[in-house]
């Protein structure tokens, strides 16, 4: 396959970027999107150009590192998929593919397709934890948790923090990410204890990081590789109002 690429190139956070045209021949349909990018980079290195920088790690769809806007959609055209799990068979010979970094005020571009998502870390640091003494692991069944609650908490915990929710949101809201973390802990007895304080500080941090308002368009759920439910957002709203009123 021959693929035409229009890739966002930007030297650093301070300088302006632009879309640059590349042609890539001999693309195999079985290649993942990132392997295609690797092939392009090999070509760039051989010709003495600076390779395109992008985030990636496990390439198994579970780490949440990779993330690109491919033809105007977060992680490409297929819902519930990470960029590394997108394959070139989804494109046709001769296609032009636009590749841009995830964008939003809370996600400044560092270089090319590489984005600073440390805002998510700071949201977690604001309250996405439980305060317990570390030491030997406690007896697993010491605190009874029903199967349904455990499953539901695990569904929320499945968020890999890739940032596709922010990238696809027209307001660049981080509501899905923040709410998944809040709901995950609020659903378990260990997390419930600090849930009031947690929701207030995490939402405050989310706002400080300059993420937008959630207007319930539900686009985030569609693009989320882990299919995190938007009901987590409703849960966060409920916990937040309750905490504000009862504070």
């Amino acid at each position: 396959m021959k693929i035409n690429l229009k890739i966002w190139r930007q030297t650093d956070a301070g300088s302006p970027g632009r879309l640059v045209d590349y042609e890539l021949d001999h693309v195999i349909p079985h290649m993942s999107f990132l392997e295609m990018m690797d092939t392009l980079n090999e070509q760039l290195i051989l010709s003495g150009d600076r390779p395109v920088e992008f985030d990636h790690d496990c390439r198994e769809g579970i780490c949440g590192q990779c993330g690109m806007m491919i033809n105007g959609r977060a992680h490409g055209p297929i819902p519930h998929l990470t960029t590394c799990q997108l394959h070139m068979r989804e494109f046709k010979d001769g296609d032009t593919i636009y590749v841009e970094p995830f964008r939003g005020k809370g996600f400044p571009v560092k270089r090319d397709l590489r984005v600073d998502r440390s805002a998510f870390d700071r949201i977690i640091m604001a309250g996405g934890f439980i305060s317990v003494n570390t030491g030997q692991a406690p007896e697993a069944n010491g605190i009874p948790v029903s199967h349904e609650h455990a499953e539901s908490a695990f569904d929320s915990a499945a968020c890999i923090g890739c940032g596709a929710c922010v990238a696809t949101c027209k307001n660049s809201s981080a509501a899905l990410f923040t709410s998944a973390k809040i709901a995950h802990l609020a659903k378990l007895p260990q997390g419930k204890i600090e849930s009031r304080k947690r929701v207030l500080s995490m939402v405050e941090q989310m706002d400080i990081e300059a993420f937008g308002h959630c207007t319930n368009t539900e686009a985030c759920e569609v693009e989320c590789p882990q299919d995190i439910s938007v009901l987590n957002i409703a849960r966060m709203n409920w916990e937040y109002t309750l905490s504000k009123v009862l504070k």
Partner: protein
Amino acid sequence: MKSTFSTLMRKTLMALTGLFLCFFLVIHLLGNLQLLLPAVQAKESFNGYSQLLSGNIFIKIISYVLYTSLIVHCLDALVITLKNRKTAGKYAVDQRGASSKWYSRNMGILGTLILIFLVFHFKDFWYQYKFGALPTDEYGHKDLYTIVIAAYQDWWYVLFYVLSMFALGYHLLHGFFSAARSLGVYHPKYVSWIRIFGRGYSYAITAGFAIIPIYIYLTQHVSWN
């Protein structure tokens, strides 16, 4: 960027004011349905009802809550939209619309259309009733009925009303369920009920309000015999 109001508080305010306006629409529609009665009966009933509302102290209090809700809903929406514009990412190629409903992304535009409609609506009926020199009917009630009938004589005015009701309908279709979300209804069972109810509510309100001007126009312009 720490502010007195969080993003969630602003959305809660949108939800509360929005739901009050939703409640008002039901009462407003029920009152207006009297216009579908046979002419003589409709005139008596509608004018009497208008008189009853304008004289009631309880309704007066509610009306002030209504004006406040309307203004707060608009101003809050403006603040949210402006702040969102600052945080939102922009793309050279944007196909994000594929993953959400168009009306959920355009609540601001739909809301603005409704606001434009409301300016005319208030000028033509509310202002007339409150401050205009209205004739009285045989019962001594202000004759709002005749004003309403006269307004719907022009096809373009009827069309403007009907189109505005579609804008309202789509606004409600997203707004009602979104309000429940913002207020934190997260139980899957109630979430699906609210979605169904919200859809039914939006269709009923749109159809109800749109039918009235069409009905009046047709009864005035088409001979049924």
